[in-house]
């Protein structure tokens, strides 16, 4: 039957072209979903301004991206991994075992993490780390003693806060944002309220107390969100008492639905984050496989373009979208043009 022949031949063509597809002419990027919008903005501008094809950008999370990055060297592996945290020691080791020894680390800027609530909801306009610790930690200080958290309303421990049920939507443990929240908010509150010292006085070692300070209560006062910020936004929309954890860029795109709270008296903004005044922020990175430079056309140009002043600078499109530009951008540009790899 001619139909059978047609099928067979088209299968054969597909098989042949699969093997010939090895020569890749576009840059491939994967990793953090926080970095994804920035990377896709740069990829789009890169495609417009250069003769190279638009780089292919995928998300999947920092860890997943770095795992694919460390699979090895070659055209069937990705060239750049985006990450919302620095690469870990054991990931560097895993990379080295697979032959990925030369990695260029690029810090593209900072991302602010903000606390926002429904625009018509209670007056959550000013928080301190101690407030969030008192609301969300399993053990808190009451009258100088470490007790199981008795607070159900914000006004229970701070008369300036609204008389509303405690309900916080925080990122789930698989998110890099959760780590920043625990370390820059809960742990700081733990120190400030004196709970940390009380734990040590109660017989814990320094390390144990530090771990205990990162714990978050989970009995309905805080809800882990494993999805992305759109899910947190939907929860906030449905609960006027809720406060949610968002990225600065997400908040700035939804100012019609959300109002932001200050942290320790500092309003989150690109300015206050770049000066370091606003305490809850983290650096964003991407990692380049140095062995692919010169093999994959456009890789170095893309990396240079990413950190160029007109893109990642304070007036560039990334800053407009919500990235806090890195004051040390010039050093980063230098590092890429010198192809300076990480030293272990």
């Amino acid at each position, binding site marked *: 039957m001619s*139909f*059978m022949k047609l*099928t067979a031949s*088209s*299968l054969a*063509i*597909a098989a042949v*072209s*699969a093997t*010939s*597809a090895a020569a890749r002419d*576009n840059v*491939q990027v994967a990793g953090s*979903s926080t970095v*994804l*919008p920035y990377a*896709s*903005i740069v*990829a*789009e*501008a890169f*495609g*417009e*301004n250069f*003769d190279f*094809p*638009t780089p*292919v*950008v*995928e*998300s*999947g999370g920092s860890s997943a991206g770095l795992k694919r990055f460390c699979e090895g060297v070659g055209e*069937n592996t990705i060239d750049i991994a985006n990450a919302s945290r620095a690469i870990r020691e054991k990931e560097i080791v895993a990379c080295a075992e697979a032959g990925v020894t030369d990695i260029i680390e690029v810090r593209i800027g900072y991302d602010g993490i903000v606390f926002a609530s429904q625009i018509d909801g209670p007056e959550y306009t000013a928080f301190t780390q101690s407030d969030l610790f008192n609301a969300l930690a399993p053990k808190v200080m009451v009258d100088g003693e470490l007790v199981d958290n008795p607070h159900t309303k914000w006004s229970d421990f701070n008369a300036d806060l609204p008389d509303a049920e405690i309900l916080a939507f925080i990122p789930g443990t698989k998110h890099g944002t959760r780590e920043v929240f625990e370390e820059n908010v809960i742990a700081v509150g733990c120190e400030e309220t004196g709970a940390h010292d009380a734990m040590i006085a109660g017989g814990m070692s320094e390390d144990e107390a530090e771990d205990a300070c990162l714990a978050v209560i989970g009995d309905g006062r805080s809800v882990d969100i494993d999805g*992305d*910020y*759109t899910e947190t936004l939907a929860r906030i929309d449905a609960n006027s008492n809720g406060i949610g954890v968002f990225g600065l*860029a*997400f908040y*700035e*795109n*939804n*100012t*019609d639905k959300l109002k932001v709270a200050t942290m320790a008296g500092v309003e989150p903004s690109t300015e206050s984050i770049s000066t370091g005044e606003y305490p809850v922020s983290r650096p964003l990175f991407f990692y380049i496989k140095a062995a692919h430079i010169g093999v994959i056309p456009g890789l170095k140009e893309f990396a240079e373009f990413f950190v160029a002043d*007109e893109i990642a600078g304070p007036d560039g*499109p990334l800053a*407009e*979208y919500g990235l806090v530009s890195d004051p040390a951008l010039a050093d980063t540009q230098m590092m890429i043009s010198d192809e300076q790899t990480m030293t272990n």
Partner: protein
Amino acid sequence: MTDTTVTPVSAKPAKSILEIDARTKKRNAAEKRFKAYGIAAICVGLFFLVALLWAIIQNGTPAFTQTYVTLDVELLEEKLDKTGERDIEAIKKVSTFGYKPLIQNALVDATEGMETEIEDKNLAKLLSDSAAAQIRDYVIANPDQIGETVEFTVLASSRVDGYLKGRVTREDLARDKNLSPDHLDLIDQMVEDGSVERIFNWAFITGADASEKRPESAGIGVSMIGSFFMMLVVLILALPIGVAASIYLEEFAPQNRFTDLIEVNISNLAAVPSIVFGILGLAVFIQFAHLPQSAPIVGGLTLTLMTLPTIVISTRASLKAVPPSIRDAALGVGASKMQTVFHHVLPLAMPGILTGTIIGLAQALGETAPLLLIGMVGFIASNYPEGVASGFLDPNSAMPAQIYEWAKRADPAYYERAWGGIIVLLVFLLTMNIIAIILRRRFERRW
């Protein structure tokens, strides 16, 4: 024996079919109740269908129109080609950032005489970032136009578009840093002036996905191509394999334990959740066979696995529906078994087979779960494939994955596009189902 013992012939029978007794009443009431339940069930179903369609159409139709601004841009020679030699390489050196001043000048000219307090440098916020790229592409294609004033129709920014669609209000913008209420006052004047208008958005249907900074230029076209290539793979593989397998099982295979086992497994496969096929696809096609990630060929192969049982089951049902007398007659006049099947049984079963195939394809077209695992979600579909081979092998998205991706993004303008994408997807599914119905109606034979 007395008279009294004689039972009189009763004038009134114990039961009459004309009179309804309690038991019959009860049965009739039960029947009425059941009918009412049925009607209520249909009404609930209809209500949800209408509510769903209403929500989709209400939210999705705005995606099909888009706001454009008409501008006269003076292509200044001193900005675009300093040497004046029209050397294309030198012209290409001017990046899109170099075109921003030209756009700003054009906007200042266009709004001359209008009342506004916006500073000149903030005027460009009215326009999409894609405007600079559009003008740059034009200049590179027509270097001889440098120095002239050319009329361009460029996209307005997503917030301006949202304002004209009623999605964005002045109150919303009070704390927005991308656009101010003053911009909206200016837009009102430009609408009167005729330089800003909303027109049908072909770019949404044919265009590529865009980054989060310019939702106004995002389209579903590239992921539509991705879906098309996936469906091609499914059709080329699933139809012949599925039909061959079912013909063999139905017409030739001996009835024994082994074929029974195969039959049971095929029926079970049809009930396997689609995410399982995704995991299988990831393990076999990407990790073992090293096919490229996010490529439509992998998506197609994975969906083929999912569609095969559907096709096998519907093909076997339609082969069974062909009366045995046809086979007997063909065999009786001396046809071989194979001639019987291919000349008589298969043509009669064809409408059923095609219907099953189309419904299987429609199911595969709307499937997202397996695609999650092979990297077709969370991917920016911004490049058109360059040819057939690149269509199969270059990373791409698919329509349902694209919709999911848009629904996740921060800018509310993407939300509207996600609903618009649903409308496009539904139109495709509806078309495929209508084709299936027409085929069945036209070729169906009754015995």
